[in-house]
């Protein structure tokens, strides 16, 4: 199996940082691992694990990931210091940027 390891760092206007590290299974173009870190605020905090878990298994396509992230934040989670769009930007950047990905394994 060939995988792509991606990462991104997005600076939100006003100062917060969102970092994403992910692994995409190239064969199925499926997100197999993702971790979102940074100095933003999310209430309740445990929502971050829920979001990461929800994203795993999705096809790593911009529209799918983006709509999933936006829908997630309609479920009562409150972001402070960043917006759902910022999260989407960071995730898309990590899953797509060629210069930040490298092929590993087989």
């Amino acid at each position, binding site marked *: 199996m060939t995988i792509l390891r991606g990462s991104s760092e997005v600076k939100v206007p*006003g100062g917060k940082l969102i970092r994403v590290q992910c692994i995409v299974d190239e064969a199925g173009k499926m997100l197999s691992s993702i971790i979102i870190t*940074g100095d933003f605020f*999310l*209430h309740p*905090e445990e929502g971050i694990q829920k979001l990461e878990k929800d994203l795993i298994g999705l096809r790593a396509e911009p529209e799918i990931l983006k709509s999933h992230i936006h829908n997630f934040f309609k479920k009562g989670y409150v972001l402070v210091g960043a917006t759902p769009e910022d999260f989407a930007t960071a995730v898309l950047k990590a899953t797509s940027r060629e210069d930040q990905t490298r092929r590993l394994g087989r």
Partner: protein
Amino acid sequence: MAKTFSIWRLLGFTKNDAAMNMAIDEAILIGRSKGESPNTVRLYGWDPSAVSIGFFQSLDAEVDLETCRTLGVDVVRRITGGGAVFHDSQGEVTYSLVFGEEERVIPRDILESYRLICSGVIRGLEVLGVKASFQPVNDIVVGERKISGNAQTRRRGVVLQHGTVLVDSDLEKMFRLLKVSDEKIRDKMISSAEERVTNLKKELPKKPSLNDVAEALRRGFEESLKIPLTKGGLTEKEVRLAKVLAKEKYSNPEWTHRR
């Protein structure tokens, strides 16, 4: 729902290690949610010096663990979001506020509640002779330079906000312990990360003692939030719970290294 308390308790300035400091804040939060602890303003310091990181931060990305070990600096993960902070044992005062979400003196809206609680810190700084202002979302600045960072969580109907006032932090040490993002510096168009931060020693002719700063913060909260504070201590239950949390959660590598 947590019971309403009209009396606010003041826990005067004391120093603890990082795990115990975070454990005490959480023990008060849990006690408050059960209706066993009153609304509380707590003033504290850190001994030894420590780095705290936000709930969502990657430990490895933010902290130089090797340098922390070498210099004997504690490392702890908070239950609040936000950024990494260096808590200098000789140069920093931290506060925490714990209160029921239904408390009418403080807005339910998160941003507005930051603004109001930070107005207490700003009033405290004014008492000391420093003019500072709130910079949304969660900073207090003197001019352009940050002097206080603040972070809030809301659990079980209770709000916990803690924050820090830099008095005489060893900035050089701070930037050796924390990995400052290039992106963040570039954004501000300044060459040195040190230019983004100030402290009371730099802003005042004479450096105030940590106790003076704690006393000014007490006055600031009382006046700005219009809450009369009654001096008290931790309850036996809070102490017992804090000891358990310090040992099993905040000293536990599984918690510290979880991201």
